[in-house]
């Protein structure tokens, strides 16, 4: 394994925070007590939390060590399908920390915060321009909340037409958040199968779409990495029966400047700024899931919205049809600044180029690996491709084992066991920021792992061996939950 990325090195152990420290230490400065101590009523006074007391160096070492147990995009290739783990530019982080921006208080009048409003306004406009949609709200904090916004808009729309609808069509390739978000609005998901080409049949939509169905929620490109070629026809059917079309935009990275979402017939969609627009995912967030709509649905968008009058930006609250607020303020603003910074840096040409290269990289991986791993849908793909562990079954090796062995080779594994329609799915999304040499090295690593699966499956079953910890007992964690120290 010497020419591969992964190797072993010195890593430090580190206990839990409360296993360190000594009462009386301080890890940060205190402010000056320049006023007299005030009396406090005993009935409201508590004891204060029993936190460990640490020094500054305790805290610094604790988190420095913890960080070294992690793998990020800056460490290496992170081909986690459906997650678009592209490079997160450092300049975006720096600009989000601009003191005037970091100190902007959201309860002040519009005149005091013109700069912040400008960023919000411009980003709304940019995302509309990129998708082809007409209006955007940046409030949703992540993709799932964007979906919720979308479903609330569906419901508000149907309500406004006096129509009561209880079902929604959702393909079986959909991400779990789709049915969960729909359910939050009282919709019952109706499952739509995909066909042998990995896409939705017009026919199956036509069969299921009825006057009790609020519409359809689809992902395009879908989670198999395939473009839903029938989308226009599907949308026409849904529209004809009074429904709306929701587009899960998690996979927008495949189609910027190439596909016009509105022209596809989509009425509402969300974007994941922490995927397509390069904001760091932070080990689980914060993200941002702006919701984009066609003109007819604009009145339902969350309030407040940033608008521009002449040269002045202001927040508009008075939208009686709005679904209301989804965030106490304006969403994850510091994430929005980063996405704005990314779009300003890329411009129209490079956004399109990014999509082209993302698709090129995925097809390249697909082509180079298709002999080694089973490819259930051997079609040109978009930004990601989905393999399975079928060929390795004879060796007693499963997707999980392949994934874990890739860790030893220095890679973050692909997304596994999703989408559900592919048993043992291995979903690879390289993104456009990976260069050919790095893809080649990854391909070699996968091939090596596949070879090991044939020759010495124990290497996979025992993997990973290089990481600080080996496989973790998830059953035990769930059976006797220990959720705090």
């Amino acid at each position, binding site marked *: 394994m010497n020419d591969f990325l992964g190797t072993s090195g010195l890593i430090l152990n580190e206990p839990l925070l409360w296993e360190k420290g000594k009462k009386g230490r301080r890890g940060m400065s205190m402010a000056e007590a320049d006023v007299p101590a005030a009396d406090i009523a005993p009935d409201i006074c508590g004891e204060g939390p029993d936190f460990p007391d640490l020094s500054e160096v305790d*805290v*610094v070492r604790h988190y420095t060590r913890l960080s070294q*147990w992690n793998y990020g995009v800056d460490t290496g290739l992170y081909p986690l399908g459906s997650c678009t783990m592209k490079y997160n530019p450092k300049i975006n982080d720096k600009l989000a920390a601009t003191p005037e921006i970091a100190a902007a208080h959201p309860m002040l009048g519009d005149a005091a915060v013109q700069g912040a409003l400008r960023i919000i306004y411009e980003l709304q406009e940019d995302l509309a321009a990129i998708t082809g949609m007409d209006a955007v709200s940046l409030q949703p904090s992540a993709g799932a909340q964007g979906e919720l916004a979308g479903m609330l808009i569906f419901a508000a729309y149907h309500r406004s037409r006096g129509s009561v609808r209880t079902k929604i069509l959702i393909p079986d390739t959909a991400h*779990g958040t789709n049915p969960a978000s729909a359910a939050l609005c009282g919709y019952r998901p109706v499952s739509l199968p995909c066909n042998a080409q990995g896409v939705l049949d017009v026919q199956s939509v036509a069969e299921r779409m009825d006057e009790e169905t609020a519409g359809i929620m689809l992902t395009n490109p879908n989670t198999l990495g395939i473009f839903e070629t029938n989308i226009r026809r599907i949308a026409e059917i849904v529209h004809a029966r009074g429904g709306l079309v929701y587009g899960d935009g998690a996979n927008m990275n495949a189609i910027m400047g190439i596909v016009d979402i509105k022209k596809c017939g989509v009425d509402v969609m969300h974007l994941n700024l922490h995927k397509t627009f390069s904001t760091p995912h932070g080990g689980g967030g914060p993200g941002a899931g702006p919701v984009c709509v066609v003109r007819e649905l604009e009145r339902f968008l969350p309030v407040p919205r940033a608008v521009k009058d002449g040269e002045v930006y202001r927040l508009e609250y008075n939208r009686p049809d709005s679904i209301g607020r989804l965030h106490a303020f304006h969403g994850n603003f510091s994430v929005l600044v980063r996405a704005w910074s990314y779009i300003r840096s890329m411009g129209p040409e490079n956004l399109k180029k990014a999509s082209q290269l993302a698709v090129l990289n995925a097809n390249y991986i697909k082509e*180079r690996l298709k002999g080694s791993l089973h490819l259930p849908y051997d079609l040109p793909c978009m930004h990601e491709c989905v393999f399975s562990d079928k060929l390795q079954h004879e060796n007693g090796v499963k997707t999980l084992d392949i994934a874990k062995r890739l860790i030893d080779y220095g890679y973050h594994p692909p997304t596994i066991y999703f989408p559900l329609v592919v048993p043992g799915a291995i979903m690879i999304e390289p993104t456009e920021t990976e260069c050919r040499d790095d893809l080649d090295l990854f391909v070699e690593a996968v091939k090596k792992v596949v070879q090991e699966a044939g020759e010495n499956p124990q290497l996979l079953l025992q993997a990973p061996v290089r990481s600080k*910890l080996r496989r973790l007992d998830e059953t035990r964690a769930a059976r006797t939950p220990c959720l*705090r120290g």
Partner: protein
Amino acid sequence: MRYLPHTREEITEMLAVVGKGSLDDLFASIPPECRFDGEIPIPAGLSEWQLNDLVRQIAASMTVTPDHCVLVGAGRYHHHIPATIPALIGRSEFLTAYTPYQPEIAQGTLQGIFEYQTLTAILLGMDVANASLYDGGSALAEALLMGLRAVKNGRRVAVSAAVHPHYRAVARSYLQSTGFELVELPFGPDGRTDFSSLAGMTGLAAVAVQSPNFFGVVEDQVAAAAAIHAAGALFISCFSEPMAYGLIKNPGRCGADIACGEGQSLGMPVSFGGAALGMFACRQEYLRNMPGRLVGETVDLEGRRGFVLTLSTREQHIRREKATSNICSNQGICAMIAAMYMASLGGGGIRETARLNYDKSEYLKGELVRAGATLVFQGPTFNEFVVRFAGDFEPIRRKLEERKIVAGLELGGSYPELSGCYLFCVTEKVAKKDLDIVVSEVRA
């Protein structure tokens, strides 16, 4: 473009491998009627240097700057943030990782979140905390939905009118299409919630109270718990200022079933309201109804302690439409920051800091009253309070703004009945000398 590594030759070679003649050919499957017309209508790309200039310009258009003394909280609080926190959280192994689906190479995030859950549970006096929700608003909404799941035949929830108006708005949005009813409880002249209307209510699943509430008033949560439990409902204790629990009784001590709110105060910048941190904790018995991710302790193959995402059978990726919530990505880095901040303060430090917030706020309150202002509510407060001035305060406020002090928030927008009343916030960051300027301008 520096983010796009492909050279022209590489593109050509790779296209040959995939059997395409051009980049456009990769998109052959896309029907013409779906195609984007022309170029994306956004401005041309900027260099890093042009972008820096633009942001400098944008920053300059912010008239309230970091040098201002901002006596406004109302859900977002100016606290000191030590330089260690940006330095540590900026480590790219934390920042550029995804959700820890592969625990062997995500132990940093996982242990960090486990510690966050623990410190949060301690701070709030609750049994168990989750790995975060989006913000204080959606945390409240999720708490209400959780109450509706947990309480049989629950079909109605109540929220105090003294809960942050924006949180209430978010809760209304979340509930609008569920068929459940959301009622509001009024507040009394002491600024505390009036629970008298609970008595007769049927189908009540949960009641949410914020403390300190939007007016800064510390609710009588022990009494609240009694009234709410008597009505057969879960007691949701909500907050926008967790710093308060360094000094005042925490939700758990007061009998809360669920504690939820906004964690920005714990080491995050005000940053125009986001990134935010939805904190969420509950009593053990409601664990399986809890929304959001959870990190749990376990062991690895060799018996060494480690951490994993757990109890995910509650979640969307397993349970889909039957999940306890639709949340997927949460506010991971914000939770890590909160843990770093709590760890940096320690038990001693949070007590001292909370105490300073209280003392400084009490100081301004006392001085303003002495200068002729009227306290609108009589209840005890933490670091925010509401006053009314004898004359028109706006000219004074403008004058103070010229002196780089933002003096309070007028409440008429959210509470028409409180028009002309001002909500002041004083944290440990504010110097007495600035408070004295406010008082002397009020006097003048």
